[in-house]
C-alpha cells in the first residue's frame, strides 16, 4: 500500500473507522471485497456528468486511489450535469476540469486519495498505465479508445478497461476485463469459480453486423455509425450535429451494405436523437450509467459477482438497461 487512501490496518484488517464507515456495504459484498477495493487504483480520462457520477460512487465505496485526467479548462457548459463544479467563475475560472472535480471529490471520503494526472489521453504510454488496475475513458474518439484499450492489453498486469458515453437520454458502456475469474453466487447460495474471456474493443466492433442476433439493441449499431462518421471526418465526439444527418445516414447505408444488415435495423429517428444530443447529458441517465459502471468496477476489482460482458445500453425512451455480448459466441 502506498501512502494513498484507505490504509488497511495490521494484518490487512480493516480499521474500526473503515468498518464503521463501510458497514452497510460490507454487508453487501463482504470484508474481502472491501479490502481489495481499498488497494485498487483507478484512472478516469474525461470528466463529465457521467464520469463524475462514477467517481462519486467509487470514492464513497472506498477505492484505494482515483486519478483524474482532463486538461480542458472548465467552461459554463461543463456545469450542466456536473455537481462537482461550483457555479462560481472565481473558483473554476482558468482551471482544468480534472483539478476542479478533484477538489470536490476529495471531500467525499477522506480515506481515498484523489489526484490529477495532466496530459492527453490519446498519448498515454504503456508504462504510465501500470500504475492503475482500472482505466475508464469517456467522450474520447474511437481512435483514442482503441489506443488506450490496446495499451492496457499490452501490459503484463491485467488492467481493466471501460469506455462510457452518455448522449442525452441514451448511454453506452463497453467493458474489457481480458481474462477475468471471479466468484459467482448461485441462486441456492453456494458459490462457483467462473472464468470469462473478453474481446478487445477492436475485436468487438469488427464483428460483421449480419453475424449479430436480430434482437441486438439498435443503439449498438447507431453508436457505431456515429463513431465511424466522427472518425472519418475527424470530429471530436459530440461535435457532430443535426446538420450532419444526411451525411451520417449515407455512412450508415454504406456500413449496412458492407455488413449486409437491413437498414431498417437502425431507425433514423434514433440517429436523429443521438445527433441532436451533441454533448448534452441528461442527469438522470448520467446517474444510471455512473451507477452501473460503479457497480461493475467494484465487482471486477473484488472478483465477486457477475460482470457485464461486454456492452451495456440504457435508453430513457424505453427505460431498458440491456446487456449485449458481442461477439455473441465468444468464449463463455
Amino acid at each position, binding site marked *: 500500500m502506498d501512502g494513498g487512501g484507505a490504509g488497511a490496518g495490521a494484518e490487512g484488517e480493516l480499521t474500526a473507522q473503515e*468498518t464503521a464507515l463501510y458497514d452497510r456495504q460490507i454487508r453487501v459484498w463482504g470484508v474481502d471485497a472491501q479490502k481489495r477495493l481499498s488497494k485498487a487504483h483507478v484512472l478516469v480520462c474525461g470528466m463529465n456528468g457521467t464520469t463524475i457520477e462514477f467517481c462519486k460512487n467509487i470514492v464513497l465505496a472506498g477505492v484505494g486511489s482515483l486519478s483524474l485526467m482532463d486538461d480542458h479548462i472548465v467552461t459554463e457548459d461543463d456545469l450542466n450535469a456536473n455537481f462537482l463544479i461550483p457555479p462560481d467563475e472565481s473558483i473554476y475560472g482558468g482551471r482544468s476540469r480534472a483539478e476542479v472535480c478533484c477538489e470536490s471529490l476529495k471531500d467525499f471520503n477522506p480515506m481515498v486519495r484523489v489526484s490529477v494526472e495532466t496530459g492527453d489521453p490519446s498519448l498515454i504510454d504503456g508504462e504510465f498505465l501500470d500504475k492503475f488496475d482500472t482505466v475508464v475513458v469517456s467522450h474520447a474518439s474511437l481512435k483514442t479508445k482503441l489506443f488506450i484499450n490496446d495499451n492496457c492489453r499490452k501490459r503484463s498486469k491485467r488492467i481493466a478497461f471501460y469506455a462510457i458515453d452518455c448522449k442525452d437520454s441514451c448511454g453506452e458502456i463497453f467493458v474489457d476485463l481480458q481474462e477475468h475469474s471471479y466468484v459467482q453466487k448461485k441462486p441456492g447460495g453456494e458459490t462457483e469459480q467462473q472464468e470469462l474471456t473478453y474481446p478487445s474493443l477492436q475485436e468487438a466492433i469488427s464483428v460483421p453486423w449480419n453475424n449479430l442476433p436480430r434482437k441486438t439493441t439498435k443503439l449498438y449499431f447507431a453508436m457505431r455509425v456515429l463513431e465511424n462518421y466522427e472518425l472519418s471526418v475527424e470530429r471530436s465526439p459530440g461535435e457532430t450535429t443535426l446538420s450532419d444527418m444526411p451525411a451520417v445516414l449515407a455512412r450508415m447505408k454504406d456500413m449496412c451494405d458492407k455488413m449486409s444488415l437491413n437498414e431498417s435495423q437502425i431507425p433514423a429517428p434514433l440517429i436523429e436523437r443521438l445527433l441532436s444530443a451533441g454533448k448534452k447529458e441528461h*442527469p*438522470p441517465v448520467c446517474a444510471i450509467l*455512473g451507477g452501473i459502471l460503479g457497480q461493475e468496477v467494484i465487482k471486477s476489482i473484488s472478483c465477486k459477482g457477475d460482470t457485464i460482458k461486454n456492452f451495456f445500453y440504457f435508453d430513457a425512451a424505453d427505460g431498458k438497461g440491456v446487456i449485449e455480448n458481442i461477439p455473441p459466441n465468444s468464449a463463455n
Partner: protein
Amino acid sequence: MAAASSEEAIKAAKVLMVGAGGIGCELLKTLALSGFSDIHIIDLDTIEVSNLNRQFLFRRSHVGQSKAKVARDAILKFRPNISITPYHANVKDSLFNVDFFKKFNVVLNGLDNLDARRHVNRLCLAAEVPLVESGTTGFLGQVTVHVKGKTECYECQPKPVPKSYPVCTITSTPSKFVHCIVWAKDLLFAKLFGDKNQDNDLNVRSKDDNSSKTDVFERNVDEDIEKYAQRIYDHVFGYNIEAALGNEETWRNRRRPNPIYIRDALPEGVVQQNGCSQDHKNEEPEPSEPSAMVSLGLRNPQEIWSLADNSRVFLEALKLFFEKREKEIGNLIFDKDDQLAVEFVTAAANIRASSFGIPLHSLFEAKGVAGNIVHAVATTNAIIAGLIVIEAIKVLKGDYQNYRMTYCLEHPSRKMLLMPVEPFEPNKSCYVCSETPLVLEVNTKTTKLREVIEKVIKSKLGMNLPLVMVGATLVFEDGEGLEPDEAANYALNLEKILVELPAPVLNGTKLTVEDFQQELKCSINIKHRDEFDEKEPDGMVLAGWSGPVDKQVTSNGEKKPVPSASRTEELDGTAEDISEKPGMKRKLNEILESKENFDALQTSLDVGSSSAQVVDDDEDEDLIMFDEDPKQGKKKRLQ
C-alpha cells in the same frame, strides 16, 4: 427526451421529496441537476457515521445534524438559485395534511419503512397527487408510479411483514441464531435495562421458588457489580436452562441444551482477562462511549469470539452499563447504534447459542441481525434516483401511457439489468383505494376494544389517529383536542369487551373506522367466532384485507394468498434509511426464478391484475420509438 415540454414541466413543478437518506441524497442531486427548482424535503433523521458511505451530501462534521437541512445546503453549493425547503420532521406529523400535499405536482418517496410509505400513499390518494415510490436493498431496487385511478396504489398488493417468531421458540427452544438474538435483545436486554413495567416473557422461568418475591434480575442494594453480573449470568445461562431441562416433554424430539455457568465458561476466573483493560494501546482515539470490546482489547468486529470471550464481554458490558450509564437503566431501548448494547446482545446471544448447539456469530453479523440492518450501496441508490426522475418527468408531462415500474436487478433477466414493466391497474378490492368492506373474525365476548385497535386498526390497517364508530355511536377517538371527559370515556371503552361497549359489537355489527389525517375511511363487518388456533395468535382474523400475506404456490402453479401468522411486535422497527420496500424482494425473487418463462413472469408479478405486461419489442417488430412531440403524445411506429 429533454424536449422543450420536459423542460417546461420541470421548471413549473413543485416537488415533495419524503426522505433525505440513501435514495434521497441521490434524488435531490439529480433533481437539481435536471432543472427542478422548487423542491420540498421532509426527513426526521439526523446524520450518522454509517450513512456517510453513500449519503454523499453529508460529511463527518455533519453527524448529528438534520439530514433534510444539510442536504439542502449541500445542493445549494452547486445550484444556488433553486429553492429547497427542508423539514426536519416526521412525515406523519399533522402539519403534513392533505392540504399540504395538494400543493405539489408530484411526491417522490425515498423512505425506509412500511408505515411511512402507507401513510404517504394515503395522503397522495386523498390529495390526488401522483406518487413515485422507490426502494433498494443491496444491488436490487425498484421504482413504481402510483396515480389515483390510473395505476395501482402502493397498498393494492400485499406487503410481507418482517418475520416474527413464536414466543416459545424464543424463550425455550431456539434453533437458529436469530432466535438467540431476539431473546437477548427483546427479552434479556429489555429486562435488565429497559422499562421494568413492560411485560416480559423472560419472567416465565425466572422464579427461583415461590417464596421469593424479589425479582431475581434486580440488583440488590450494595450488591457488588461483579457479583451481580455473575449472578445474572448463572441464572439465565445456567439455572434457567437446567430448570427447562426438567420438562422432559420439550426435549423428546430436540437436542437438549447445556446449562452454562460462569465457572465452566471461565474456569480460571473472571479476573484473568486476556488483553486486560487499558494497557492495550489503540491507534483509534479512546471512544467517548464505554465499550466492553475496548476494555477487553477485542478489536475485530468481524471475528467470532470464543465462549470465554463472549462471557467476558457479557460481564464487562453489564458492568459498564451499571458503572457508566446507570441513569439510563430502566429507560433503555435496544439501538443498533449503541455500541455497548450491541456488545451485550452479541455476547448474550452467543452464550445462549453455545448452550443450544447453534453456531456463534461475530459482532458485525449479530449487529446486522439485531438491528435489521439493510444492505446498502451508493450505486443502486444512484440508479434508482435516476429512474425516479425519469418517471417523475413523465408524470409531470401527463405521459401516462409511458409510465413504467422498473426493477433494478443483480443478475440480468432476458438481457436486462434494468427492467421496465407496465404499471398495474388499481386492485378493485384494495381497502385503501377502493371502498371494499373488510371482515373481521373475532371473539366478541372475550376481546377488548383495545386489542382490535392495536392489532388491527393501527397495526394492520396502518392508521395513525383512528376514530371508531359502531353504527352511529362514536366509541373511540385518538388525537389531540379531545375534551377531558371525552378522553376519559374513550379510555374506559378501550378496556371494555366488544359486546359490552355502549353500542355493543356483535356478530354482524358494522364498524366504521376513519383516520382524518389520512382521509381514509373503511368499514369492517364483524363476524363472531369462538375459537382461534395457534396459527392465529392475534385471536382475530382480518379478511378481505390485502395486507401482509405469505404467498404459497400450490403444485399446479396456482397462487393463493395465505394470511401470515405474525406477532404484532415485529423484530424491530429501526430498519435503516434505505431499507427495501417490503414486497420488493418477493417480486424480484419471482422474476429471477421465472426468468425462463415469460408467461410465468407476467402472472407472478401480480395476483390481482391481468394487465401486467413486461414492455418489450416483439421479436418480429421493429423498434417502437416514442415521439417527442407532446401534442401528439402517442407511440409512433416506425417503418
